[in-house]
Every structure is written in structure tokens, then in C-alpha cells.
């Protein structure tokens, strides 16, 4: 099993943390994991992304140009990464803010009204979690319990009360996947 995912959005949307949660979860499930941020001056202010690899075997390159899955939180990232999803792969994106559509037929495209639903949940920062929920429902590379466990590890104690909300967000996302 090898799953290579890119998370991309504006700086501040929390894409680096999303990736870390996945990496952490992979670790809990005894996978080999690798999390690689894009770094560079463009990070500042502009867009941010990170690549997470999950595998049963040692991970070769942390930097990739094609992905099994792209989780995309803003339009510039959609434009950059939509073409980089491998045939047969998954593209999940926030359809509330990203108004374009993918015309690729060789991948699974999940258009999730993430921002809208996050607002409904009362916390716009849940958007990423909603997309994650959709992605994991589509492609259950990790168990939801594990994600929750990982959240406990990754979130500072003072945010642990947010875990139920995160769980709800995951479920919300999952509900969009048949």
C-alpha cells in the first residue's frame, strides 16, 4: 500500500496541520510515513502545500509531482494540482470557494461544499476536516478512530475540547461520499 497525498491551500488555512494529522495517523497505524512541506519564499502570505506519503514500505521520495490524492482548499491550488492527480486518483476540493470544475474523467472528483458546511458547523476552520472526511470515506486508507487519536496527539491539550467538533466535520465530509 502506498498513498501519496497533497494538501494545498492559502497559508493560514491549515493545510500543513491537515497533512501532519494524516502523517501522525499513519504512524499510529504502523505505516511508514513522510510529511514534506513546500518551503520557499512563496510560502509567506501566498499558498502553502504539503505532501504526505503513507506506505507499508520505506518511502522513497518525499517530493513528488504526481499524487494519488489531492486535497485542495483554494483556487490557485486547484489550478496547480488538478492536473497532477494520477489517473484513478482522487481530487477533493472546497466547492464553496472554488468555482471551477475539473474536466478530468480519469479521476474521482469530490466537490465538497466545505466552507459552507464548516460555517454551518460554526467554525470555518473545519473546512479542511470536512474535505478530509470526504477523502477518507472515498478511500479509507486510515481509520477514523486513528485520526481522532492523532488529533489528541497533535492538538495542544487546550484544544482537546474541539475534538468532537472535528469528528463531526469528518462525518459531515464523509456524508457527501456515497
Amino acid at each position, binding site marked *: 500500500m502506498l498513498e501519496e497525498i497533497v494538501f494545498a491551500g492559502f497559508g493560514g488555512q491549515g493545510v500543513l496541520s491537515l497533512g501532519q494529522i494524516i502523517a501522525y495517523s499513519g504512524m499510529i497505524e504502523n505505516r511508514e510515513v513522510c510529511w514534506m512541506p513546500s518551503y520557499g*519564499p*512563496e510560502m*509567506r*502570505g501566498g499558498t502553502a502545500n504539503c505532501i504526505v506519503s503513507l506506505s507499508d514500505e520505506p518511502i522513497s521520495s518525499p517530493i513528488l509531482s504526481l499524487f494519488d490524492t489531492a486535497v485542495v482548499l483554494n483556487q490557485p491550488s486547484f489550478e496547480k494540482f488538478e492536473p497532477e492527480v494520477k489517473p484513478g486518483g482522487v481530487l477533493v476540493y472546497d466547492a464553496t470557494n472554488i468555482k471551477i470544475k475539473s474536466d478530468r474523467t480519469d479521476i474521482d472528483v469530490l466537490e465538497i461544499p466545505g466552507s459552507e458546511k464548516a460555517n454551518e458547523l460554526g467554525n470555518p476552520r473545519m473546512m479542511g476536516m470536512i474535505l478530509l472526511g470526504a477523502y477518507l470515506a472515498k478511500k479509507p486508507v486510515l481509520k477514523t478512530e486513528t485520526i481522532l487519536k492523532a488529533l489528541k496527539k497533535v492538538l495542544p491539550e487546550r484544544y482537546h475540547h474541539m475534538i468532537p467538533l472535528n469528528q463531526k466535520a469528518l462525518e459531515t465530509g464523509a456524508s457527501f461520499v456515497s
Partner: protein
Amino acid sequence: MGITVSLENMEKIYERPKTLKDKVMHYCPGCGHGVTHRLVMELVEELGIQHNTVGVAPVGCSVFAYYYMDIDMQEAAHGRACAVATGIKRMMPDHYVFTYQGDGDLAAIGTNETIHACNRGENITIVFVNNAIYGMTGGQMAPTTLLGQPATTCPLGREQAANGYPIRMSELVAQLPGTIYVERVAVNTPARVRKAKKALIKAFKSQELKKGTSFVEIVSNCPSNWKMTPVESNKWLDENMLPYYPLGLYKDEISGE
């Protein structure tokens, strides 16, 4: 949608200088580097010296200055801008040559080149943007970081015992007989921007005298690494930077010419 006002019967009284290339600068929103770039390019336009000005960019957030300033430029190694400028100026004594440097560049790794260019009285202008932080590398302590100010390499705030005092470069270089003009300005209010521009013009024009080095320190902000909004950062600058880095003229030997 904002309102629209007809421009009929209006005259343009300010626009972006033509010497600033038509590109979006990579600086963070509200960063003083943008204002300073603009001022330098305005004066190059106004003095009509685009054809015989050579700038030297530092390593720091303003490393790409040459992407924006429409003049011939060189990108110097971190801290070496004054040496590079010396090399240029010595070969072309009639050109306007300036460096544009951050506080890490000019006052940490490049202190030697700064001091010695000033001491030799190289006929160059040094534009020194002091934002009390290493902007480009993500907020490490600069030699000008204030006591108590946190940075990623002094997370609990700079402490005198461990890291010494913030260095006041204008005061220091004004001591050197090689400098003929030293002024500290800021760009966080319209009035100060006007003053900063005057200082920059004076500094550039002083090169014509061939009497020594001109040095303009611009107390500036770094909203991103200070972790403030631009407006907050300009206020913080007023309240914290200026008491330690007082604005004003530190030396003027251009006198009368």
C-alpha cells in the same frame, strides 16, 4: 463595491514611478520594503539618473529588488553589499551607486563591510532598512531586535546578558569620519514618508560631492514575523522601535554645497 468618482476635470498628482517595474512585489502585505523601494525609484525618476545608477540588492526579503527596480542592479552575497558597491563605484566614480540592505545583512554578517566602506568614505549611498528581525528566513533575532522582543531564536525575548544590546548603526557610522550624511527616518506615516524621501534624495545627491558615504536608516516593520497586522506593526514601531532608534539627523557635512 466601492464608490466610483468621475475623474473629469481632475489632474493626476501622484502615480507609481515609471522606474518601478510593472510587477507585483513579493513582499507581505503592509511591508515597509515596498514603500522604501518606491521612494528610491521615485528619486531615481525625479533626479533623472536611471541611466547612471547602479543598485546593489542584499540577501534578505529585498533580495529580489532587481525584479522591481528598473535600473541596473547586482545581487550581493549576504552582508557583502557594501563591498560589491565599492567595487562598482571605484570603477565608475561618476555613477550613482547604492546598496539596499536589511539589518541582518548590514549589521550582523555584513558589519565589517559596512564599517569599512563608511570608514573609507566610499562615495555611495547606503539604504538600510531596519525592521529588527530577519524577515526572509522567518523571524530570527536580528542584531537590531529590541530587548524583550521575541524572535524564533530568542523565543522568550531578546535578553541583554545572552545576546547583547540592539545595535544602533546610524549612531555608529556617524562616528566614522568617512560618512558625510547620516539620517534615521521611518515610513510608517505619510509625513515620515515625505521626510524619508527627502533624506534619500539628499543622500543620493551627496554622491556628486565625492566627499564620503551617505547613510539612510529606515526604521521599518515586518508584520509577518512580528505577527501583527500591518497597522498594528506601524503602531508597535512607533511605540517600541522609535524610542530606541530615535529618528533624526545624525550627521550632515554636505552643508551649503
